[in-house]
């Protein structure tokens, strides 16, 4: 296993810049998730690491080797795609053996047998070894595809949305399995996804990509609790964070254009004062779990919608035409259009610069 370093990687397709001077350190044995929407540059990054794509500028280091000029085959990385890309007429065993049969590798039959057996046990597909891959379910096929990566014992695993084609139940199961596999193998793994739940649950660290640049790199907790900018704040977390443009008016925060206001207790006020200096314009962010329903005080609104999620109720409150979401216990019952009052947990409110979209609390730090 090896660490991975990307230095100022750039790549464009015609007019469109896919990667813009992207730098990244992935630690040895780390489960690193590249998260971002379609077109953010996730897959391009992965393909540059694998050697399937040549960056216009920048360096790719695997371990202590600068591999820019190495062919994909020599880089000793294994790729797993969303499509299983198995040989349909072959048995599972033959599919697993295939990458080891290469003349370049010179692995003995006995060794091949052992590696295949070990990979199959790890992935719990031993009972399928003699079955043809076109007779397998989606989950089984993806396990075989991962198995084919494992047998090679590569320095680096690269996975491109490998769970996206599976149904919800299987995805959940394979998420846990992949993490256990990662712990067991001590593998360095770069995993690409657009699904923030996948990123949060699996990554040791997450790199959030936006338009070919890393908006933030951090542990799931860091990314969720201290998003660097409004893009990260709204891309990570479901239901999404509530964001409003506002101005500071003495001790009050006034939300515009449709107007409502709330005041901050002293502690939150001094926290805000520290980061705002003489700024009066703000973007305020509050996650739904930090919006409380209160009996008195707070901000008046009406119930706009209620969605039962079983484990909790997601309620949408209309305050002066701002739709604010709040997470409530599943037993909460409020009628549509009924009056409610909400309050924000003061120490959980985020303040962003409306121009740069940066979180004021992390201004000046590196991503």
């Amino acid at each position, binding site marked *: 296993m090896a660490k991975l370093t990307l230095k100022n990687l750039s790549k464009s397709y015609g007019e469109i810049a896919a990667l813009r001077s992207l730098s990244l350190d992935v630690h040895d044995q780390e489960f690193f998730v590249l998260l971002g929407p379609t077109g953010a540059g996730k897959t391009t990054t992965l393909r540059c690491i694998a050697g399937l794509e040549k960056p216009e500028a920048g360096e790719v280091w695997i371990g202590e080797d600068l591999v820019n000029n190495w062919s994909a085959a020599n880089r000793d990385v294994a790729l797993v795609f969303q499509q299983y890309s198995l040989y349909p007429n072959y048995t599972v065993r033959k599919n697993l053996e295939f990458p080891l049969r290469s003349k370049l590798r010179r692995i003995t039959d006995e060794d091949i047998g052992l590696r295949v057996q070990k990979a199959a046990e790890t992935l719990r597909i031993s009972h399928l070894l003699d079955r043809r891959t076109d007779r397998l379910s989606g989950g089984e096929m993806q396990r075989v595809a991962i198995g084919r990566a494992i047998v090679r014992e590569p320095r680096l695993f690269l996975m491109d949305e490998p769970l996206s084609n599976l149904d919800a139940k299987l995805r959940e199961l394979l998420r846990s399995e992949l993490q256990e596999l990662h712990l067991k193998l001590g593998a360095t793994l770069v995993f690409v996804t657009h699904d923030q739940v996948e990123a949060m649950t699996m990554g040791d660290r997450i790199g959030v990509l936006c338009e070919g640049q890393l908006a933030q790199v951090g542990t799931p907790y860091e990314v969720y609790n201290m998003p660097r900018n409004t893009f990260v704040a709204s891309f990570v977390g479901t239901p999404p964070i509530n964001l409003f443009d506002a101005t500071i008016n003495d001790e009050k925060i006034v939300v515009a254009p449709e107007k409502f206001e709330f005041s901050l207790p002293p502690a939150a006020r001094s926290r805000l004062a520290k980061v705002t200096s003489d700024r009066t314009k703000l973007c305020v962010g509050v996650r739904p779990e930090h919006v409380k329903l209160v009996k008195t005080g707070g901000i008046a609104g009406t119930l706009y*919608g209620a969605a039962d999620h079983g484990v909790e109720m997601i309620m949408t409150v209309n305050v002066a035409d701002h739709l604010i979401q709040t997470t409530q216990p599943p037993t909460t019952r409020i009628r549509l259009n009924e009056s409610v009052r909400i309050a924000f947990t003061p120490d959980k409110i985020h303040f962003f610069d409306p121009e740069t979209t940066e979180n004021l609390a992390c201004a000046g730090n590196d991503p």
Partner: protein
Amino acid sequence: MADIDLIDVDKHFGANWVIRKLNLRVDHGEFVVLLGPSGCGKTTTLRAVAGLEEIDSGEIRIDGKSVESLPASDRDIAFVFQLYSLYPHLTAFENIAFPLRAFRMSDKEVRGKVKAVAKVLRIEHLLSQKPSALAGGDMQRVTIGRALVRRPKAILMDEPIGALDAKMREEMRVELRRLHIENNSTTIYVTHDQIEAMSMADRIAIMNDGVLQQVGSPTEVYSRPANLFVAQFVGSPIMNVVDCRIEPADSATNIRLDGMQSVFRFGSDVHRHVAAVGHEEIALGVRPEAVLVERSDQAGYVPAKVHLIEPQGAYDILDIGVGKAVIRARTESQFVTRLHEPVWVQLDPERSHFFDKKSGFALPIGK
């Protein structure tokens, strides 16, 4: 508006049963969601109600009248598909007005009706746009507007928001629910997405392999699933289902998972029910939020180990080893921070379920 009755409806394609003896009543003004995996028969059921699919036996009644001999066009039902199916050369206004043009209606009347529907759907400002200028969510609003404008007896929707991105889907769920409450139209809605079903339906009808599994309110199907299929299809993360042994004790029941030294203590009614029904093979079902976790030993709790921590942002999911079994628990964010940390767990008896593994049926314990 109308009520819809499906009575002993059967449908097969050759030797394949698509719908088997389906009985379902949708009341006047009710929003019923047909929920199930692909191939479960939900779309065929919807199409049969619309008159787009013939049934092999049974009866479909709208407002008490059998519609067997009534062609689709005479059933006065509106159908909304996943694909927008708008006329590209017509404005949003004309698309919505289209079904009204078949009637002898004055322009003024048409305008009034279109405006009223557009207001509810919040697309008044888009009425002069062509479909190509609209975002996916807005296009689907126009499609729904076209379905609503002539006030049909019932509205049938087949995954109408399945093609939208996650954020738009969430918004549309809230809007569709509001729309239903405001318009009170009898609605049957097909989806494979349990969150959609939970957050919009008055009642959910869950199907699998052409067979209706359970019909009930979101709370009912979530808290009292009729069988293993429903238990694991509704809710995310999925309900834990583990093998267990049930041992009578003095005025209590001991529940032992595979490899467990100590036991979970439940009320005596559990073994009485199990004994009365005579089931030998019992599975225990418990949702992650009903697995209670403590960091110190407490009365009634058993020792366990944390295998994985899966942060979700607002909360964490822990994979916990209890005996040889692994169960998932929902805790506060960062409640447990290190892998392999010892914890103590208890299952909330009020929210635990027991299933007959052979039939899949839930035992009526505590019900």
